[in-house]
């Protein structure tokens, strides 16, 4: 178990990759974007990109906006 910060909220994470985190958060794969420590992680890299202790993760999706 490592500690990460997702959208400014600390949480424990039992998995290892970005893809595993999204599964744990029960998020659809479609319509979601991820940045780790401010750097965009491309969709194709989600299954391989490993999260480390203290990583700051931003998980974003569509919202109404002009």
């Amino acid at each position, binding site marked *: 178990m490592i500690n990460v910060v997702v959208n400014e909220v600390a949480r424990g994470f039992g998995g290892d990759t970005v893809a595993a985190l999204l599964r744990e958060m029960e998020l659809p794969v479609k319509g979601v*974007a991820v940045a780790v420590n401010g750097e965009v992680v*491309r969709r194709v890299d989600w299954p391989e990109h490993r999260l480390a202790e203290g990583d700051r993760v931003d998980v*974003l*999706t*569509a*919202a*109404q*906006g*002009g």
Partner: protein
Amino acid sequence: MFSLGGVDFSSRLILGTGGASSLAALEKAIVASGTELVTVALRRVEASEHGLLEMLERLGVRILPNTAGCYTAHDAVRTARLAREAFETDWVKLEVIGDERTLLPDAVELVRAAAQLVDEGFVVLPYTTDDPVLARRLADLGCAAVMPAGAPIGSGLGITNPHHIGLITQTVECPVILDAGIGTASDAALAMELGCDGVLLASAVTRAADPAAMASAMRHAVVAGRLAAQAGRIVRRTFALASTSDSGLAKWT
């Protein structure tokens, strides 16, 4: 037919989705507007309403992600890259805001972000000021269109400098889309009469008392303005020019 970024659209109205009271109200407005392209923002998942993307997909409209809320080129570029991952589109409505009271664009940051995103292969649609020189610079960079503000976002003031909007349409070869400031249907018609290729609006519809009715009004206004622009209006005269001939006028003695 209206071509933007290599894609043909039959509607010249682009609808922003911000400001709607509910997804159901938004859906009715989108349908009534006849638009084929709608903007969305990118926000943290817990702040986002579920079902927006599903609804847009169901309606078959194309998504144009925006970079609303970005104040630097760096943030706007990052947001565009995130949007590309989220929505699998390289289209972006590029907004780089310079002032939180007017929400007007920061020209320096905007040009910097546009150059970077064009380099990265994005179809860049920049929200810009009504400055014809800045519009030309953005067009020269390779932006797919320029989108000058008629007035500040959400102000409903209409087109405060119609002369400059007209100049922009004569200055750049890429499409010109009037973006922001529209309050009612006549503003959208005026934009098209000034030579704009399209209109992007959100608040005027989503915050109207009856969004679907206003969306329908905008749809007709954009069509009417376009037709009027092509029809060749009469010259303005100081004095009257009778439309009825005096020939055959009865004489009463």
